[in-house]
């Protein structure tokens, strides 16, 4: 089946043999199984979670809209005449056609091209051709109620200008979902009005969970991404750590540049690093101080589909768009602040070189995920070994020699999916 989105939900996936109750062993079939994927769409993306669907700065004016995805579902996010923001399923209530085909625009209504059904910016059905027939013939039946046939609404809330949507009435309010640690990180990054600087997109032939693990995996950061380490943007010898929320669904990796010395660095990396590398034009790695706390790198992952990063002066959100068990799109939105000087804007634009599909410190992730997907397909019964930082209890740490946050991610995932092992660590 070429398009995995057509795979129907055949009910619950087979039971998971976890081997350990602390998620230090992850069975490889979880990255490949279509039933698991269908269950994820229902229980995670349509479940009690908030998914990031955009930024308020992208739809500043009434009528502005953007199309995006929540899991597999096509979504319209727009701003109505009164300034409020709506998220709705981008699928005509009449015959199921995509209503908005453009990625963005400004409009007074959303009209499906197929039979011209017309919806307001709030998703309500406003009109349809020949509703009352023609010359007394045809038309919709007498019991047809316009109010029952709008575009399905999602709950939609923003925090600090970041828009989230949820299919589930049970999801806690967004502010509670983020919790105090991640609210304060959002307050930090979005402390003043932002300006969108552009987008980057990347199609990765791997399971979406591999990317969620990747953004919580501090172990790989300074090993896979050699550019990072060589040019000092992030080294494991710098002051840094990992912070999770109580339920270990979200994670913040942070570090401070200039907090290690060359001797420490040499001792740790001398066996794996070629130290003769020097940049002829080092502007791309220059970090202009802009936050009082001295944090120069912060990767903030919000379950299930969002990441907000600060890498030097590069600021961005990353949205995961699932496309079946074996593929996802990573959608990067790079921004600066409205009051940035031209020099600062130019610097942020130059540092776009660090991130995205061609990022000097991020390109490797695409390859790491694809080679994992490729090599595990033949070993579905085998499992990975997640033991850096030890097994057992799942806790935040003041260092980064760990993959405990990866176990934290799986613990929340298993809870939502209803597949926790006996006596599971949470």
């Amino acid at each position, binding site marked *: 089946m070429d398009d995995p989105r057509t795979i129907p939900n055949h009910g619950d996936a087979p039971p998971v043999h976890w081997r350990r109750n602390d998620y230090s062993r992850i069975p490889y079939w979880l990255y490949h199984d279509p039933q698991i994927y269908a269950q994820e769409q229902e229980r995670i993306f349509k479940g009690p979670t908030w998914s990031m669907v955009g930024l308020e700065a992208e739809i500043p004016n009434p009528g502005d809209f953007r199309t995006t995805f929540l899991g597999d579902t096509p979504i319209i996010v727009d701003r109505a005449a009164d300034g409020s923001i709506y998220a709705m399923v981008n699928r005509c209530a009449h015959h199921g056609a995509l209503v908005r085909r453009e990625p963005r625009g400004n409009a007074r209504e959303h009209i499906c091209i197929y039979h011209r059904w017309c919806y307001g910016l709030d998703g309500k059905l406003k009109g349809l051709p020949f509703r009352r027939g023609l010359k007394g013939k045809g038309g919709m039946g007498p019991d047809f109620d316009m109010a029952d046939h709008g575009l399905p609404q999602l709950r939609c809330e923003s925090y600090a200008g970041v828009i989230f949507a949820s299919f589930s009435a049970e999801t806690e309010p967004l502010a509670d979902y983020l919790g105090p640690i991640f609210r304060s990180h959002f307050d930090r990054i979005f402390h003043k009005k932002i300006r969108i600087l552009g987008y980057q997109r990347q199609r*990765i032939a791997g399971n979406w969970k591999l990317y969620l693990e990747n953004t919580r995996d501090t172990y790989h950061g300074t090993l896979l991404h050699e550019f990072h380490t060589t040019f000092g943007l992030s080294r494991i010898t710098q002051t840094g750590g990992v912070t999770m929320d109580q339920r270990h669904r979200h994670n913040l990796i942070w570090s401070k540049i200039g907090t290690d010395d060359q001797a420490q660095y040499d001792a740790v990396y001398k066996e794996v690093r070629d130290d003769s590398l020097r940049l002829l034009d080092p*502007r791309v790695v220059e970090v202009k101080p802009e936050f009082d706390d001295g944090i120069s790198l912060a990767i903030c992952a919000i379950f299930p589909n969002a990441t907000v990063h600060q890498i030097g002066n590069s600021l961005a959100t990353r949205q995961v768009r699932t496309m079946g068990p074996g593929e996802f799109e990573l959608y990067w939105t790079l921004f600066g602040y409205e009051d940035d000087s031209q020099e600062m*804007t130019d610097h942020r634009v130059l540092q*776009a070189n660090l991130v995205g*599909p061609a990022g*000097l410190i991020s390109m490797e992730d695409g390859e790491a995920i694809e080679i994992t997907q490729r090599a595990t397909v033949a070993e579905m019964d085998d499992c990975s070994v997640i033991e850096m930082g030890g097994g057992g209890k799942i806790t935040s740490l003041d260092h980064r020699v760990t993959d405990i946050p990866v176990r934290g991610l799986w613990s929340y995932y298993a809870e939502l999916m209803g597949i926790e092992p006996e006596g599971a660590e949470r």
Partner: protein
Amino acid sequence: MTSLAMTPAEVRVAAQELMDDYGERIDSNRLEEWLDLFAEDCSYRIMSRENVEQNLPVPLMMCTSKNQLRDRIVALRRANEYNLHYDRHVIGAPRIRPTDTADLWTVEASYAVFQTTLEGQPRLFSVGRYTDKLRVEGGTLLICEKLVVVDSFSIPTLLATPL
């Protein structure tokens, strides 16, 4: 300098040759020699068509100096990990126009880049258009500005080798 200026007909031939060299040096993994096709004050930018349409400055790859371009190649050789592959450029006939500056020409061409894995599996990796500024220097043409606008801006896997 004037004695080394080129006639429009000579520029046409030289620009076609430069495009041929450009693709060939990337495809045969001679990236250090590929650098020689650029002027010392060059810039190199790969932009997504969606950002260009929205007038947004974020590039996929951008070098504002030749040293940054050299750094990219050194990083590719010695720091970055990427999907192992062969590149194959197919570059359409260049369209050549003079500019208001003597010895400076605008050259545009559409391109397709195919990537083939080391196991022999090909895919269309990138399709888009080049808009270059070429300058006559010492009797040869050099690239002083290269803009690659990518139609296929949802990049498969990653983008390591220049387009």
